[in-house]
Structures are given as structure tokens and as C-alpha cells.
């Protein structure tokens, strides 16, 4: 496993409440692994804790990366080990050019421009149009997200966490993003995808369901998605959108059984 979380608990900054509790899952190297769950289930907070942000300290459990215990490492050390995060709403720092921004995390500083051009092409931004632009309000939300993705690609991390990469984007753009994820994967990067959308998650090989701050299941993604639908009581939605006849992952009997089990569990 590239990343392993063992019974990880993350409280709020003031330690008065628990955000996620006893989280246990692993991410295989080279895979796309989605963390799914409804709004408020703790997905982004968990990503911040994996990144080591100071406001999301792990109070219990351990995080391992490449077999090394990184629980007590700071954000910079984790980034240097090869972990990074593409933010849901990345900041606009007027005064920083796209080229400078992309260069910040590059390991090889000898051919910065070539690397930046390559990263921009991967996220389908024209280098000529963007490389000298500033990271300011003139960029749309979609453009800013692509530049964030390009910056993470330019780092060549081992693990890139994408926090709600679809938020605020229209469907055409989302389709484009899914293609970009596959390009990133071919660069030997492992992707941990944070999303609450099933269509985004379907690019994933594996998934973990977070529900009310707890990890309910880690498995191949369709299985996790099925459990998510069962927990949310979305049976028709599940049958209609995820497991249609021509693209069925499971038989209808199996879907019925999972929903029944979930129903019984609740009662």
C-alpha cells in the first residue's frame, strides 16, 4: 500500500468535537481511489489530515506512507515525501505568475519552463495563453482548478489528493477532467479522489465510503458506491444511474439484498 490509515481520528481544532473517527483504509500504488460520502461526512477534513495541515492534527491512530509513519510530520515534510493536495478552492495570489506558481513544487529546477508547458498541456490549457498570466481574479474557477492540477502534476508527487475537483464545474468540463485524471495516472501518480458525485467516482478503481465521520467500507468502487446508495436510501437512483442492464456491475438480486441488509441494520 502506498498510503495506509490505521484507526485515524481527527478532532476539530479546539478538540471539542470529532470530525472523523477510527478511519481505516489503504490506497494501492498506481490506483485511483475515491473517498465518497455525503456533505459533512469529513472527506475534505480527512484529506487535510493526510496532508498534515496544522488545524487537522491526528489525535489517535497512525498514517503510513510508503511504509513510513508520517503521523507526526508537518505538511512540508509530507510534501517532500511525495504527497500533495489539489485544493477545492485554491487561492488567487495576485502577483504570482502561473509559471512561478507551477515552479514552486518542481524537484528539478533546471528546465522550469519546459516542465510548466508540459503540465499546462496535460490539463488542456494553452501554455502560450497562460504561462505568463497571474493567479488573480481574472481566472475563472475552472481555469484556476486546472492551474492547481498543473501545479500538482509539475511536482511529480507519488500521491495526489484531488479535493472535490468537480465542484463548480459544468458537465462538459467535468468530462474533460475525467480524461485528465487518466493522463495523471499514466505519469505514475496515485490519485486519492475526494468527491460526493458518483459520476466522478466511477473513474476510480477503489473507494472508501465515509459516513458520519466513519469509514464504512473500502472495496472496488462499484461496491462502495452501491453501499453509499443503500445508506442514503437511493435504490431507484442506484438502479437507474449506476447499474443499468448494459453496464451492470451487479445483479438486481444483489442490489436488493444490500439494500435490505442496510434497512435491517437501521431498524
Amino acid at each position, binding site marked *: 500500500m502506498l498510503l495506509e490509515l490505521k484507526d485515524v481520528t481527527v478532532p476539530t481544532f479546539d478538540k471539542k468535537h470529532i470530525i472523523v473517527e477510527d478511519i481505516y483504509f489503504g490506497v494501492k500504488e498506481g490506483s485511483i481511489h475515491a473517498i465518497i460520502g455525503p456533505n459533512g461526512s469529513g472527506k475534505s477534513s480527512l484529506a487535510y489530515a493526510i*496532508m498534515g*495541515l*496544522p*488545524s487537522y492534527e491526528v489525535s489517535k491512530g497512525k498514517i503510513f506512507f510508503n511504509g513510513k509513519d508520517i503521523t507526526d510530520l*508537518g*505538511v*512540508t515534510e509530507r*510534501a*517532500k515525501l511525495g504527497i*500533495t*493536495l489539489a*485544493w477545492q478552492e*485554491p*487561492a488567487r*495570489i*495576485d*502577483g*504570482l505568475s502561473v509559471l*512561478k506558481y507551477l515552479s*514552486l*513544487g518542481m524537484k528539478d529546477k533546471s528546465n522550469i519552463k519546459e516542465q510548466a508547458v508540459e503540465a499546462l498541456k496535460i490539463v488542456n490549457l494553452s501554455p502560450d495563453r497562460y504561462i505568463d498570466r497571474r493567479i488573480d481574479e481574472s481566472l475563472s474557477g475552472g481555469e484556476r482548478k486546472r492551474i492547481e492540477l498543473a*501545479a*500538482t502534476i509539475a*511536482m511529480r508527487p507519488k500521491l495526489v489528493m484531488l479535493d472535490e475537483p468537480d465542484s463548480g464545474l459544468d458537465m462538459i468540463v467535468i468530462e474533460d477532467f475525467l480524461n485528465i485524471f487518466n493522463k495523471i495516472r499514466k505519469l505514475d501518480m496515485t490519485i486519492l479522489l475526494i468527491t460526493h458525485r458518483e459520476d466522478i467516482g466511477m473513474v476510480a478503481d477503489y473507494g472508501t465510503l465515509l459516513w458520519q465521520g466513519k469509514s464504512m467500507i473500502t472495496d472496488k468502487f462499484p461496491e462502495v458506491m452501491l453501499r453509499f446508495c443503500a445508506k442514503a436510501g437511493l435504490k431507484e437512483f442506484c438502479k437507474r444511474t449506476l447499474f443499468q442492464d448494459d453496464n451492470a456491475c451487479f445483479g438486481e438480486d444483489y442490489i436488493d439484498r444490500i439494500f435490505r441488509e442496510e434497512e435491517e441494520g437501521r431498524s
Partner: protein
Amino acid sequence: MSDEPYPEEILESIENYNIDINNFIPGHGKGAKLLLNFNKISGLEEIEGVILKGREIENGIVADIIIKEGSVIEDPVHLCFGVNKQSGIQQIFPRIIAEDNTEVTIRAHCSFPNADGLIHKMFGHFYIGNNCKFTYNETHYHGEKSGALVAPVSYMYIGENSIYENNFNLTQGTPGKVKILLDIYAMKNSVIRSNVKAFGKGIGDSIRIRDSVFLEGENARSVIKMKAAAKDGGEVLMYGITEGNSPRCNGHVECQEIVLGKGSTCRARPFIRAIDPTSTVSHEASLGRFPQKWLDELQAKGLSEEEATDILIEAMLKED
């Protein structure tokens, strides 16, 4: 006029602001230029539409710079006030006049690379006529020893329908003691934009800047932006003053200051006053550190907190 070549150290420090020095070495470049080496004039070149006169006095010079009526000056006029001695007094008394219907950019470079007990003073008068577009870009470098005392005072009259833009940059090296006073009187329909950037890097750096705009003419408009950072004991105090004294005038003052390390101080005092009921004057000030999220984002790219902060300061001081 001195025949000595212009000191390399001064030229290098100007290049560090990404300015092409070939444009203002005497005999090179197209623009008009006035170069001062301590208290000696070492270069003075006029071009069509620009009158430049200078006279050496004890401890400095008196200079007249006149842009003739109707002239559109394509290449910037360069003023270079350099001192490569450690100490001494350099005093500049410029009178800058842009006659009606003119367009010009003046680039002033004040460079004191070895300053250690050096005093530079300026007492400038600017008269910008009607329908002018006048840009004054000023870059400073005061060496690395916090050893300069720099005290420029300027009074500016901006005529009707004119646009005046002031860009002051003191972000490289160690500023030393800096006291800047700028009073701008804006007439009818004029537009004033002033951007001031300064970075105090150590205990010997104290920067005090007072930018004042008096909106005296109907519909005059102004924006003063002051950005500063103080680090490791540095001190920055910025006064941004705007008075709305005429109908439908509109002024805004913005101060942004970042303070880093123990003993550093940043103070911002926006002072606004409106005496005409149809005028609008506003201010905005922020002091402190960068948002944690910005630091997190840069640290997640492998930068240390200090490196991330330096990048953010650099970015802040590059903003328009």
C-alpha cells in the same frame, strides 16, 4: 559635468529591478536622461520635447525637467540619483513641469549600494498641466547595511482631465531610515493612482510614508494603494490620507501590511475626510500575517513556512 564613468555598482542595483540600464547610460538609449553621481552631474541628455537643466550646488543639485506643451514622449525619461560612497549628503531640488496635453513616463532610480551613514534628501515640485498623462516610477535601493537616511518630500499639482500615476518601489536591500512625504492636489476630472511598496527587513529599517491626496476639483478620483512588509525587527508606518473637497469626487485608500518575526511593527493609518456632501471617500486596511490557507497551499508544494512567506511577500509586492 563629470567625465567619470557611472559606477557599476549603482547600475547593477538598478538592473536588479529588471530595468534595462542600457536605456539610460549616457550616449545610449533613446530617452532623455539626467544622471547624478553623488553630487556631480555625470550625464544629461535632452530630446525633442523635453528640456532638462541641472546645476550643481553644495551637497546636491537643482534640476528643471520640462515636458513641452503637446509633446508625447515615447521613451521614458530617466533620472538616476546614485551614490556609491558610504556616507555624505545628497540633496536634490527638482522642479518637474508637464505642460498641457503631454504624455510622459519618468523613471527615477535612487541607488545607494554602500550606504552607511548616507543622507539623501529631495524636495520636489511637480506641476502637471491639463489633459496630461504623467507616470512617475521610482525605484530605490539603499544597500544591505540599513545605513541610509532617505527623506523625499514632493508637492504635486495635477491639472484638469489629467491622469497621474505614481509607482514607488523599495523592496530590495535594506531600506534604512526612510521618511517620505507626498502631497497631491487633484483638479477637476483628474485621476490619481498611487502605488507604494516597501519592505523593512531588519531592526535598522524604519519606513514612514505619508501619501496625501486632496481632491480639489469636481469629479476628481484617486486610489492610493500602500503595501508593506516588516520582518525581523523592521518597522513600517503608512499614512494614507485622502480629502474629498469637491463635488462628486471619489477617493479610496488601501493599506495592506504583513508583519513577520518578533519585534517587527507595521502600522497603517488611513485618514479620510469629506467636506462635500456629494463626495465619496473610503479606506481599507489590513495588518498581520498571510491567511493560513495560503501558507498551507504553498507548503503542500514542499515549501517551508519561511519560503512560503517569502513567496507571498514577493507576490504581494508585485501586485498592481
